[in-house]
C-alpha cells in the first residue's frame, strides 16, 4: 500500500459553500483528506453535515468552492469539471456511499448476491461463476452466511442490510467511502458489531472514509480526525481524541458534555 504513506491528499476541499435559496446549507468548508484516513463530521441535526457530504460525493453541486480528487493515475481533478460519465464511473468503482437507510443503497427486489455483484457487472465482469464467488467471499467478510446469497434484502434484518450495503460498496475495492450515519437506527449491540466490522475493513483495505454522524461514540471509535459543524460552518477541527478530550469551542464542550453516561 504505497498510497498509505503518500504525502499527497486524496481529497482537497476549498471553500465549499451551498445555499438553499437564502438559507445556508454549509459555508466555506475547506479541508484535506489523506489516503487511509478516516474523517468524522459531527454536529447536531441541521448543522450542514449531510449537505456537505452530498457536495463531496457529487450528489449535490455546491454553490461555490472547489473539490479536487486524486484519480488512480495520480492527477488531481476537479470533481465538478469531470464529465458525467467519468463522475458516474468514479462513483461506482473508486468510491462507495453507505446510506443511513440501507434500502436507499440496495436494490431491494434482487437477491443479496446480485446486490454485491452489480458493481462487478457494471465494470464489465461477464462470468457468472466469478461474480458469485466474489459475492460469496464478500458476504463472508461482512458476516452474512453464505446460504443467504439468494435471498432478497427485504428478508434481512436492519443490521444485515447495513452490512450487505457495505459489502456492495466495497466489492470494487474503492479508495474513498462516504458514510451517512451508517449506524443510525440500529440497536446498540448491532451497532457495536457493525462498528467493529467497519473498523476492521477500513484498516485492512486502507480505505479513506468521510463519515457523517451525530454520535460522538461512533466518531471516537472509527475516526482519526474530526470536524465539528454548527450552522453550516466548521467550528472546530483536529485529531479525534484531542477534540473529544479537550474541546476548545464552547459548543463542542456542550456537545461532548451532553453524551449520556450509563
Amino acid at each position, binding site marked *: 500500500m504505497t498510497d498509505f504513506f503518500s504525502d499527497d491528499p486524496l481529497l482537497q476541499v476549498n471553500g465549499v459553500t451551498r445555499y438553499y435559496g437564502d438559507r445556508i446549507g454549509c459555508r466555506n468548508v475547506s479541508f484535506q483528506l489523506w489516503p487511509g484516513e478516516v474523517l468524522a463530521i459531527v454536529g447536531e441535526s441541521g448543522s450542514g453535515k449531510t449537505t456537505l457530504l452530498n457536495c463531496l460525493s457529487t450528489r449535490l453541486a455546491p454553490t461555490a468552492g472547489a473539490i479536487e480528487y486524486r484519480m488512480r493515475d495520480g492527477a488531481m481533478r476537479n470533481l465538478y469539471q469531470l464529465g458525467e460519465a467519468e463522475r458516474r464511473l468514479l462513483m461506482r468503482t473508486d468510491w462507495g456511499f453507505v446510506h443511513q437507510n440501507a434500502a436507499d443503497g440496495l436494490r431491494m427486489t*434482487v*437477491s443479496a448476491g*446480485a446486490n454485491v455483484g452489480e458493481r462487478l*457487472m*457494471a*465494470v464489465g465482469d*461477464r*462470468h457468472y461463476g466469478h461474480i*458469485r464467488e466474489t459475492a460469496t467471499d464478500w458476504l463472508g467478510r461482512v458476516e452474512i452466511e453464505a446460504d443467504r446469497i439468494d435471498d432478497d434484502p427485504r428478508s434481512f434484518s436492519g443490521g444485515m442490510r447495513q452490512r450487505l450495503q457495505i459489502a456492495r460498496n466495497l466489492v470494487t475495492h474503492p479508495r474513498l467511502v462516504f458514510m451517512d450515519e451508517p449506524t443510525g437506527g440500529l440497536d446498540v449491540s448491532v451497532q457495536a458489531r457493525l462498528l467493529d466490522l467497519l473498523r476492521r475493513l477500513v484498516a485492512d483495505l486502507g480505505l479513506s472514509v468521510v463519515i457523517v454522524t451525530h454520535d460522538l461514540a461512533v466518531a471516537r471509535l472509527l475516526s482519526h480526525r474530526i470536524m465539528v459543524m454548527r450552522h453550516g460552518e466548521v467550528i472546530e477541527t483536529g485529531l479525534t481524541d484531542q477534540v473529544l478530550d479537550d474541546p476548545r469551542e464552547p459548543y463542542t464542550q456542550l456537545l461532548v458534555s451532553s453524551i449520556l453516561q450509563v
Partner: protein
Amino acid sequence: MTAQQKPLDEGEYNFAYLDEQTKRMIRRAILKGIAVPGYQVPFASREMPMPYGWGTGGVQVTASILGADDCLKVIDQGSDDTTNAVAIRGFFEKTAGVETTFETSKASIIQTRHRIPEKDLREDQIIVFQVPIPEPLRFLEPRETETRKMHALEEYGLMHVKLYEDIAKNGHIATTYAYPVLVNNRYVMDPSPTPKFDNPKIDKMAALQLYGAGREKRIYAIPPYTEVKSLDFEDYPFEVQKFDKPCGLCGAENVYLDEVILDDKGGRMFVCSDSDYCEERREAGHLGPMAADPNAMTLAGGTSDQHSEEPAR
C-alpha cells in the same frame, strides 16, 4: 402533401388512416431510429382507433411506410388468422386498400406481434414489430430519467443483474421472451415480446426491422445486416428454446412450436407457430406425426379454409 391514393371510404380517411403530416413526423422518427440502431426515438404517438396493447405503435409505423403498391402481411403469435392480425389486416384493407397476403415471401411489409416468420426475410421486405414496453431496463430501474442516462452513458451492468438473478433462482437464464440484445455494440434493446427463439434471426437480418411502441411513444429500428448480440454470461451462454418433437402437422424441426389442446381428454399437439410456413410445408407434401389424427385435421382444415377466404385482388 397529397395523398398517395384515394381512400376507399369516400374521403373520410386519408390513405392508411393517418394524415400526411403525422406520417412525416413518424418517418422522421423512423429515419433517426435507423441512423442510430437500437436507440429509442420519442415520437408524438397518435390516438388510434384501437386500444393500447393492440399494436397502436406498429400500426402507426406501418401506416407511415405503406405505399399503394405494397403487399401487407399481419401476424399475431406467428399466425395470420388470430384476432389481432385479422383486425389490423382489415384496418389497412379498409383505410389503404392495399393488397394483403398470408404468404411471407409475397409480402413487402410484415407487421408482427411476437414472432418473426420462419422463412428468411429479404432485403426488399420490412418487418414492423408491435412493442408494449420498449425499455429493457424498466423493471430494474423505474425512473425514465435514469434509464435514459444509462443508455446515454452505456451503463448496462444492470441488465446482467437481471440475468444473474435468473441463474441464481432457476439455475439457467429463464428469460424466454423480450430477451435483451446489444445492437451494433452500442444500445441495449428489448426486441419486443418475441420469444428468444427468434433472437438469432434479428442478428444480421436482410430486412429492415422497425419497432413501434404506441403507448410508450417510442420508435426504434435495426437496419439490414446489423450485428445484434443476445446478452449472456461467459459461463452461461445464450441458448434458444429447443423442442423435443417436430411439428405435429407438417413435421418441421427447428421451428417454434405452439401447444394446442385438442379435446378435454388430455389430447394435445405441438404445431408450428408460423401458420403460413406450416401450410406451405403441408402443401409440399410434408406430413407430421399427428397429420392423420381427425381432431388435428379439423384444426388444420380450419386454417386452410381461412386461407381460401382471403379476398382475391
